[in-house]
């Protein structure tokens, strides 16, 4: 993976929230005991019980922790790239577009397969489609940085040693395969393949998404961006260099009005700093 990306989620709010969502949604779902509501297959949910809302919710959360781990790894090592490439606004629109396309394609496919072939498709719960759409776009925009060869000597009967040429993308590919087959080749493979197809359609501008902002999301994001940038707190290393007097002066400056707004996470950690 690449080392040029900044550490953590600096200046990448959409990726940060997406990571939080991918982790928290399954936790919340199993805490509420509603895992079974995210399961989707055409028969009986749609054909006899008419639970069309299942199309809307099946992408919200992964069912198993291994899928969450793989997805988070992919997000952190590869898909983070996309936010730098597209910008936060467009990535957010892209996420919404691709989730909608995936819902539509999955519902059409499962309807056709059930009606024409008589096969009942079972679709794994989780944002497989969205992830593979993003991964497709990632592959289209990321050149390989280096390549290396694995040389196997001693294949009997052949004069030349066998060579395997591998690029740096192999690690992401391994994770992709892992995510693709994580819930069975068919169950998770179908939404993943649809995701790849959506990615290809978006990339070739057949479906709008890559350059068209999603109407609803923009005002919300503009408000987010318009917020005053948070003043940074002095870090531990800064404080250590200060003399006692200086620290007192800092404390004195720290009046109630001037206290920077600290998010909950910082406050939580601050309780352990003396």
């Amino acid at each position, binding site marked *: 993976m690449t080392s040029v990306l900044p550490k953590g989620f600096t200046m990448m709010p959409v990726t940060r929230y997406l990571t939080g969502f991918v982790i928290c949604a399954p936790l919340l779902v199993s805490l509420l005991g509603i895992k079974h509501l995210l399961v989707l297959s055409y028969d009986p*949910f749609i054909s006899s019980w008419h639970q069309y809302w299942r199309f809307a919710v099946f992408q919200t959360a992964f069912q198993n922790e291994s899928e969450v781990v793989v997805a988070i790894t992919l997000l952190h090592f590869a898909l983070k790239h996309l936010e730098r490439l597209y910008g936060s606004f467009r990535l957010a629109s892209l996420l919404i577009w691709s989730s909608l396309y995936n819902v539509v394609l999955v519902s059409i496919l499962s309807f056709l397969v059930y009606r024409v072939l008589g096969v009942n498709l079972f679709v794994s719960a989780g944002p497989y489609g969205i992830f593979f759409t993003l991964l497709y776009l990632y592959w289209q925009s990321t050149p390989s940085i280096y390549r290396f060869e694995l040389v196997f000597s001693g294949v009997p009967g052949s004069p030349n040693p066998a060579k395997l040429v591998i690029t740096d993308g192999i690690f992401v590919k391994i994770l992709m395969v892992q995510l693709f087959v994580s819930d069975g080749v068919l169950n998770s493979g179908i939404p993943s393949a649809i995701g790849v197809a959506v990615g290809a359609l978006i990339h070739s501008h057949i479906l709008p998404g890559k350059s068209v902002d999603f109407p609803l999301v923009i005002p919300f994001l503009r408000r987010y961006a318009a917020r005053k940038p948070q003043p940074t707190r002095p870090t531990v290393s800064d404080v250590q260099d200060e003399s006692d007097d200086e620290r007192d002066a800092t404390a004195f400056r720290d009046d109630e009005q001037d206290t920077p707004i600290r998010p909950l996470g910082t406050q939580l950690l601050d309780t352990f700093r003396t």
Partner: protein
Amino acid sequence: MVEINKTRLLFFIIFMTLMIPGPAPPDGLSGNGAKVQALQQLKDDISTSRGVLFNSTYEQPTGNLTGLKLSYQDALEHRNISLYPFEDRQGPYEENQRYSILPNYVRKLAIDSLNSEEETIQALEFEDEILEHPKWNAISEVFGSDVNIRAESHGAFWKNITGSLIGDFQRVNHTFEHIPMPLPPYMKALLRSYNTNRTEGDDNWREPNDASSFERDVPNFHVDELKTGNVTELSGNLKVNIQNTGDSSVEGSNGSVRVRLQIKMTDIDEVNIHSLALSGVYHPDSGNLIATTRSAKYAGSYGIPHLNFDETHYNRSKAAMSDWINQTSVDEVDVTMIDTLLDASLGCEMIAFLHFNSTNLSADEMRMIDDELWNPLGRPHKSIPPIAISSGVLYSPDCGLLIKATGLVGEREEVQNKRIQRVVLLGIILLFAQIIFSIKQMSATNTPSTLSRISFWTIAMMNLIDGSLSMLYLLSSIVFQKLYLQLAVSSFLGFTLASVFEMRYMILIYTSQMNERDISWGVALRGTAIDDRNNERIDERENPNNNVGTEEPLLPLNQARPQAVQQTQQQPRIIQDEQTVSGQIYLRLFFFLIVFSFLVLNASLWPRKDRMVFEYVVLLVLNSFWVPQIYRNTLRGSRRSFGWDFVIGTSVLRVIPIAYLCLVKNNPFSHHQDQLLISLIVIWLGIQIFVLVLQELFGARFFLPDRLLPKSYDYHPVLTAGDLEHGFGVEHDDEGVHHEDGKCKVDCAICMNEVEIPIAKSSEHLTNIMNRRGYMVTPCRHIFHTNCLESWMKYKLQCPVCRNSLPPI
């Protein structure tokens, strides 16, 4: 180091108690010949009983089963059991008391109650005979004489009746003929060997119904009263736990399944508790359930088929029971089984006939509900009906008891679990909110000055509540496997709140207050005011010995008397660092936590009255967590302590669960409605908060009489013109001071803006206290804005102008 060792010891003890199971199960096979013999004979006995069950037909009379040899008629005629089998009972089985242990009147009552919705069992032919029974009046008083069969069409019955039902019972005020149920000879022999091996003191193995053993110590009736299942009350509460354990698809059973019942009968005050374990058969086609106990003296579960009153149900019961019995091999019976059976044989045997009401749903709808509860998928289904028993008969053949069960209502286990889950989730939200409030409070008071205002014990009480809540959650997460996730999360959050945040806060508070000298109420109130030297003289007059050590003013006051300081310095003082302190606090808290949690657990098993007293006392004491803060405010004369968001938020968050338990009817913890308790708690907390508000508005000691008051330093004194002339912090150049209509303007040295001071004409003419809140005068006679000096005093208790030390607010 000593503390650390103590901690280790405590943890070791806790660990050991948790890890090591109770005393090892008695290894009866080593060196106890009697038990080995008994086990072998028990195995033989069980295989015989199984043979009787498998080979029996409806036509054959009840076979050679322990406790079932004598029929009710035999008991009436006092036949000797050793003469079994009786010759006059070889013919085909008949449904009457000649052949069965059920008396005819019990049979009639049972059939009536099983037929209460639809006639599924043929009624008796000899009803007139029963009505002439001498005790029929007593019976019909409880059971009602007329039988009305509800003939209207009804929906399907429950297929699976796993759940717990709560209702009432009524006992017929008459003891009927006891059917003798002696222990089989090998069990008697075993008991005899027990008794010879034991000292007389713990001779608790008594042979039931064996007159010779009673002669020694207690009169017969006394023993009878103590027996489990021998209900002496005429009415009380009845709780039935039902579990479907069998497989409903057994061939020939037509859906009838084997069920297990746990019946708990208590009087209203829950002083006597009778718990009985029954097993039997449930017929989902008619909603009828027939179950009996099983013990060493009564092999009831093998005789179940004949309690079904007709041949069809006989065959279904036989199929269901045979299938279940076949699942275990006779060889798997071990020594513990002997003790279980002997234990059970000390109590009364019980036979239960229960009729479950039909639901108002069709069979398909019920199947949908059953499937959904068994394997949730989000199926569309009708709202889930309750499980209800309209009528039931409990009969004890060996104690001669006849009990009517009424109004039993409950929910399916899964529905009940779902309800508890919702409550636990709500608790998670509350815990989360409490954590956020605590964090905010902690970051608002992170300086020694602000920390020193806060009462250690207020936080300690909250910590005790949260910690024991976390412990109880942890314990119940082990018990309720179905709700493990939710309970574990609650326990984790409670633990985080109690032993991370609140504990950290406690340690901070403790270390910041560690150097305070011990003070008592009297001392604090008599304590020297900073600007009033007269007090010192008064003190000396009152206390000629000048026992200064106990008379120390609260905190570093700027005029500490030299001799007092000397005396305190002479006292040996243990210097504690933060680690030692935290170790000690952790140790004490965990000790109290464990003791308190076990006390609460234990109290939940107490009789009703004791439990209610305990509940009132504990809840009122635990909900007085603002009292230490009020006390501390008064002692230190400080007006502000906790942020108001924390005070209100915490109080509300802690009242919500109690309010839920006391106000919501049918809550899953089956806590009774108790408006008195909740209103007491709300009023009590309201009073505490109101006092805190008043303390903030009028000063911490507003409620004390005036003569006690001028003891702590008053930062808002009445300033008179005379004071100003005596150089009260004011530079006497006319540029800086402006006298205008009883007001004076001075520069605040912190913000460099003007402070407006109202000037009283003379010392008698007091200005309103609210006017005086605007400025503060230090003991060294410097004047500041209240806001300016208070925010400065968060950081340092030192005058910003002359560096004299300041008494805390």
